[in-house]
């Protein structure tokens, strides 16, 4: 599904405490595109906060035939 150069993306970040401790990050993303969308595209995934960054282990993208 395409989006055009006239599209705008609005992101809203909210923090919510978990009842038993910890926190959630809620990201509400709203995509408006007058070219390809008749109505805004909205998603609102949530993320659970890790105690530290020890699990953060991204690897570079590689390509192959």
């Amino acid at each position: 599904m395409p989006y055009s150069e006239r599209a705008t993306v609005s992101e809203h970040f909210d923090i919510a405490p978990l009842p038993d401790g910890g926190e959630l990050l809620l990201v509400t993303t709203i995509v408006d595109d007058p070219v390809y969308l008749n109505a805004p595209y909205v998603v609102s995934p949530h993320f659970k906060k890790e105690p530290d960054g020890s699990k953060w282990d991204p690897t570079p993208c590689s390509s192959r035939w």
Partner: protein
Amino acid sequence: MKTRRVILGLLLVALGARTVFTQAGPAVLPSQFEFAGSWAPIGTEDVQNDSVPVDYLGLALTEDARTRALSYDESQKSMVERQCQGWGAAYAVLGPFGLRISSRSDPAPNRVVSYSIDAWEDWNEMTIWMDDRPRPSVNALHTQAGFTLGRWEGGALAARTTHIKAGFIRKTGVPLSDQATIDWRFFRHGDVLTVLMVARDPVYLVEPEIISKGFRLSKVPLDFRDPCVPGFEGREPGDGVPHFAPDENPFLDEFMKLYNLPREAVLGYRDTLYPEYRKKIKDTYVPPPPCSADCGVAGNFVRRRGPTP
């Protein structure tokens, strides 16, 4: 004399202001937002996870929950006495409908006493009490909607629901007990209302079930349907309750076979909730072959299940 006129004038201004203020309803403070209105569902998010009978992905279930879920037969909803049973509070985000919200105010202190999320065809009205009233006794009546207290917190409306009837956390029969607690957060960003639901259940959930879903402010009031009216759907009153023996559920391995998914992932084991599980199975997982015919939007699902008889 002049002083009297000034006092009388001030009194009239004050009374006038009071009248206008009452007509407009309680003021929305800077840390709050206008919650009342019609909020339409947004089709770009699907959080229902009810496409196949046995799909417990993303849930952390107790053994009791797994057993009960596998014994559930959706034909139960065809029974006359269960057609209008309705769904519990969690259905606010699990259901397909929008949220039509109204507020009730106490004119004397001019504050909101409660918000109500209106009923839908198979869902009862849910009231969010904003007046700090005490929560009922643990032995008080449990209802489908439960008892909900709310408060403004950090720019969001936070609420907690207790006293629900035993029901479901997924429409395919995954149970939620009457001891469950549901925490809500409502955030507003322009015309978008984001709802966060955190359900905890000491009986059926090992970890909370968390769902976030967006709604969009509707310029016209949502058109809600008529109340549920039961009708004959093939099962006579007094017939047995449709169910499966848990280990003989005919759909037990359908989802697993469709996508070659591990049994523990489909059946809602705790370890499968987190990204570490992907690393655990990445060397052993074999994706199903690409769909080659009759794929449709559901891909392998349509191809393997075949046409509906």
